[in-house]
């Protein structure tokens, strides 16, 4: 993004990004292709790609700028060629945006989302040996911009695809909120009868080291060959290439900002491992696919559900705030076994009366733990009992994010008393009755 003055000069000279230009300044001459400018720094500095491939910045102030002959250079992608009508399993790839669809951006200097999802297939030609893949697109946004509307759109597209004969579905999306989306799809896709594999990338596919290639390949294997009727996340199992893990959609969480193996199973083991060569190993029980009947998308979602964290010194008025704004549900991320402050000495810090008053007014309140691992408990300490008696529902070993999504979905589709009853009941693998020793920090 060039500054106003420089943009005007470039426009007047008929120069745009991609044009070959000559800039003369203080007796020096710089030649090359004008590059677009990222939206940072000094907007008067022209970025020129020199013939050796390097970019340099030359301040346009006091410089003569001249357009040279020659064709503007642009990005050219060979057309993606996917085999059609083969005997390979039919797999639908639903593209939504995210790093996996990121490309170098000429316009901002950063990354932008693919507008043609087929380009993704061009980057990974191996996919056409695994499945006959067709592509559809529901959005082109980063996952932090996703809302329940996008989840509903994905659920509808996935249902349609499976009901129209897709053996499995791959959904590519941004990773930051992927575990929210996987939880949402787990609840929304009723009577699921085929594998639904969510995947993405921690390194964008414009670099040769991207994890996108293997994540897509493993996801394609799962969608084309596995017999699971599950929604799950398929990403790198370790920092090394070679194997992906398939994690239950309600039991997965992004546990690292940048590592390839950021997604971990919480209070669960992976459902399966899959190697880049297609070898699969199932390590947990799962619902079998039969590809019979119809998948029904139940996509209602109550946005007036809040997600709040209790912490030392936290102001319990936050509950009243949401109650006053018409919120119908609140998931509290409590401390330890599910505590909120409940002091009878420092009464102003106690959440108990606020929770009581909220539940009395019909708001559903769920309790989870910021420990992430383990199960909340309503009985061990007096303060836990107080919270329980105030009408809050303890969400067992459910992930806080999953509980948030579940409550939004329940309130969007069921009556409040039904939602209340269903919150602590397992619907889509989000609650397990047993937690085993080996499910911690894996």
């Amino acid at each position: 993004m060039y500054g106003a003055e420089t943009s005007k000069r470039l426009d007047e000279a008929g120069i745009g990004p991609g044009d070959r230009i000559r800039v003369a300044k203080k007796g020096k001459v710089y030649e090359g292709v004008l590059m677009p400018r990222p939206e940072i720094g000094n907007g008067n500095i022209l970025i020129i790609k020199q013939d050796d491939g390097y970019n340099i910045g030359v301040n346009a102030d006091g410089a003569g700028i001249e357009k040279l002959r020659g064709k503007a250079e642009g990005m050219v992608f060979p057309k993606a060629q996917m085999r059609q009508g083969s005997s390979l399993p039919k797999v639908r790839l639903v593209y939504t945006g995210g790093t996996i669809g990121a490309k170098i951006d000429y316009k901002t200097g950063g990354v932008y989302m693919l507008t043609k999802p087929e380009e993704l297939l061009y980057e990974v030609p191996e996919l056409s040996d695994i499945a006959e893949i067709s592509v559809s697109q529901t959005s082109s946004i980063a996952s932090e911009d996703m809302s329940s509307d996008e989840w509903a759109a994905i659920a509808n597209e996935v249902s349609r695809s499976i009901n129209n004969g897709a053996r499995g579905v791959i959904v590519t999306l941004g990773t930051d909120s992927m575990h929210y989306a996987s939880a949402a799809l787990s609840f929304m896709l009723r009577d699921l009868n085929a594998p639904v594999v969510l995947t993405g990338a921690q390194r964008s596919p414009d670099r040769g080291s991207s994890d996108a290639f293997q994540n897509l390949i493993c996801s394609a294997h799962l969608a084309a060959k596995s017999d699971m009727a599950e929604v799950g996340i398929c990403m790198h199992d370790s920092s090394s290439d070679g194997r992906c893990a398939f994690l239950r959609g309600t039991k997965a969480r992004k546990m690292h900002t940048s590592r390839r193996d950021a997604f971990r199973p919480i209070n669960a083991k992976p459902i399966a491992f899959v190697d880049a060569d297609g070898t699969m190993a199932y390590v947990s029980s799962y619902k079998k696919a039969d590809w019979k009947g119809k998948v029904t998308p139940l996509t209602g979602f109550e946005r007036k559900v809040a997600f709040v964290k209790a912490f030392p010194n936290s102001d319990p008025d936050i509950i009243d705030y949401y109650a006053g704004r018409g919120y119908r549900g609140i998931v509290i991320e409590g401390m330890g076994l599910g505590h909120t402050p409940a002091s009878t000495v420092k009464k102003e810090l106690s959440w108990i009366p606020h929770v009581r008053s909220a539940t009395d007014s019909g708001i559903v309140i769920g309790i989870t733990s910021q420990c992430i691992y383990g199960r909340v408990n309503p009985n061990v300490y007096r303060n836990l009992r107080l919270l329980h008696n105030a009408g809050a529902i303890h969400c067992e070993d459910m992930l806080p994010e999953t509980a948030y999504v579940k409550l939004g979905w329940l309130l969007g589709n069921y009556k409040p008393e039904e939602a209340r009853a269903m919150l602590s009941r397992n619907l889509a693998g989000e609650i397990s009755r047993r937690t085993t020793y080996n499910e911690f920090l894996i």
Partner: protein
Amino acid sequence: MEVKDVSYYRRIGFLCGLEIHQRLATAEKLFCSCTATLQQGELPAAEVRRRQRAVAGELGAVDRAASFEQEKEQQFIYRVSDGHACLVDIDEEPPHSLNAEAMAAALSISCGMHADIPDELEPMRKLVVDGSNPSAFQRTTKVGMDGYLNVNGTRVAITSVFLEEESAGIERRAEDGVVYDTGRIGIPLVEIDTDPHLGSPEKAKETALAIGTLLRLTGKAQRGIGTIRQDVNVSIMGGARVEIKGLQDLDSLDKFVENEVLRQQNLVKIKEELSGRKNASVGGAVDITHLFTSTGVKIISNAISSGGIVLGIALGGFGGILGREINPERRLGTEISDYAKMGGVNGIIHSDEDPRKYGFRPGEMEAAAKALGAGEGDAFILIAGRRDSAYTAASFASERAKAAIGLGVVPETRAAVNNNMHTTKFMRPLAGRSRMYPETDATPIEVSGSMLAEARASAPDLDAAMAGLMSELKSRALADQMIMSPRLQLYRELAGEAGSDKAFIANTLLQKFTEMRRAGCNVDAIPAGRLSGLFKAHSEGRITKNAVEEILKSLSERDADIEDIIKARGLSRVTGSGLRKIVLEELEAAGGGGNRGAIINRIMSKHRLNVDGDELNRILSEEGRHGKEA
């Protein structure tokens, strides 16, 4: 024989340019806070395995060199130690901001090369998929262009100065992939490129020396093996640009260049000869495993018995040419073999070789020739190995053979073979321009007026440094030697101590070290801190010059505390009244007179390491005078 002077090189269209890479001595790496100083011995905490693939560059095209590496289907194994590498180095975390200390040093070097510094620096990614960068690219930024350097009276154009990150070093090639040590990744590096008109191999060597000197003058150059690397680009008229990497010894740089010229000349001759033969052609790979089921050739029978195959490729019109020497002990067949090896086989066998060398049974080679349709004046090659490797190798080999007809010289990156023959071997195709795209994780850096002023003020200046050394050392010869020495920076540190004997330090680092190295002492292993303590002990008058040498010998064998060595070996200097006592005893033993030279010899033979010759002379003169007066 023609004299190979500058006019000869002009006549053959000789082009030669240098790329000098120097690691910078900064506290931290270029894009993270790991130490930039390599230390040996830390065990790796983890091993990470990755694959890489060639992806479209900024303008959409996939680089030739990058796709070549991918065809090799390599797995890369990165050994990671907590002390030397963090998540940034193994491509698991975005880069932190560019190291300001490294940038200041790079800008200062740019100024020293009289280069034009861009108004804004634009960090780029250079696509590299040979595994040497876990991210599959190297971060590199142009910090200077269009500069020059005076080298022995001629002006050498410096086209560019770059600030980039060091890559990983290959530890070994294992069965299941290439093993890299990640400690090196991300150490700041400056690259200095000259223009390709260095004129002669000799001039190329002089220029490399001069650039090395200027870099050391900054005080920001790392010392030690591998901290500076010289790549040379060479071409001749009718040839092609070839980049030679991995030159370990600057002294032989000119010889490598001379051999590359010879190689290109011979390849051009071969091309001309092949174009004279109307049928020059390269056939397809044919599976002729069945002809060798009972062969006595080990490499073939081993391949077959482990389930592999034998492929043959007919080379029409190549008869006699595969065996032609193009460089000392290297033939066209060797070049083709180097390509085949990239496919994962051990090499090739070709029809210009003596079949008895391999142990072929009579008739085997003839049967192969027949099956491949190779007749009189033709040649063929055989490739044995695992099925997939053999076919990949065959496609690489036939690509190289076709190039002998069409191109003559192939634009390549070649590795120096350090076996005293000064020859090179194929590494990968020369990288093209599409390797570059912007590093979007790092922001452009506008070069401020104060950054420029600081760079100019700290720029290395050869003339000023020379004048400084002259006044310190009082000897042109010593100053000349010191300015070119890799130990200049060390000298400056040691000579910077108060009261230091600069000429003695210079002489020790230059002459004494060379002498001792020749005698088998590993003086280069002595830590700089020890040397500093040693020269301090000398300048404080606590040890003699002879003791300094003795302690150096001891340190080169085993590191120890200087004071402990002095005590244990009885190396304290005997001076003042102590020395006077020795002199008086000797004078008395000699009957109060005697030959002065003989007395000195007697004292020095007993106390060589503890007595300073000058002081002894002075005391002798004084005592002699006293004696006479008495």
